[in-house]
């Protein structure tokens, strides 16, 4: 499920960045970049997990830590978009909603940073590992 979701999200982002058609509603012929990025991402992932002796746990764990570190960026931009009155009109975030969003973003960023820093300090042997 994760491979399907992440590959589709990667392909969607590639299409969005390039300004190309990016939807499963479109046939492959009219959305070549979308389908090519989707299949390429899946093939790269499959290739990596088939490497003999690859540290899969470390790959999975660090990929998730990196995703958590990058998540606040998305959350901040979503909050900025949701607060934009010109864009959202009457549906724009109120002050109380923005404060709740800021608290959530701070909490998520703090958790991600704590996990990333703790892993780094253990890897650098600055603190004893668990």
């Amino acid at each position: 499920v994760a491979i399907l979701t992440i590959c589709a999200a990667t392909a969607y982002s590639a299409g969005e960045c390039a300004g190309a058609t990016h939807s499963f509603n479109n046939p492959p012929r009219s959305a070549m970049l979308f389908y090519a990025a989707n299949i390429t991402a899946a093939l790269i992932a499959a290739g990596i997990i088939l490497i003999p002796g690859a540290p899969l746990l470390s790959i999975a764990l660090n990929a998730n830590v990196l995703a958590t570190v990058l998540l606040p960026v998305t959350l901040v931009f979503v909050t900025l978009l949701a607060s934009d009155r010109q864009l959202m009109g009457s549906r724009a975030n109120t002050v109380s909603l923005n404060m709740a969003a800021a608290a959530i973003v701070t909490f998520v960023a703090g958790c991600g940073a704590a996990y990333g820093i703790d892993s780094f300090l253990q890897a650098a042997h600055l603190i004893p590992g668990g």
Partner: protein
Amino acid sequence: MARPATYPASTPIPRRAQRPGGEPAVFLEPGQLTAATRRPIPRAQLGKRAMSALWALRVLVIILSAMVIYTFFSQLGS
């Protein structure tokens, strides 16, 4: 299945989709929705505090990403 019609970016959005409480995605056809999302919007005017926060976020993300990448490669070696 019929191929969805394509609409130019200048396609007007129906009034019922614009009124407060109207859900654009419900009233618009897929092609109209795509055309609506392709409309360019002006660059957001952010205050000094928001710009400072975004720069702090950039620095934080770069430093933490470097830490995670270092951790990954050090775990590969051990």
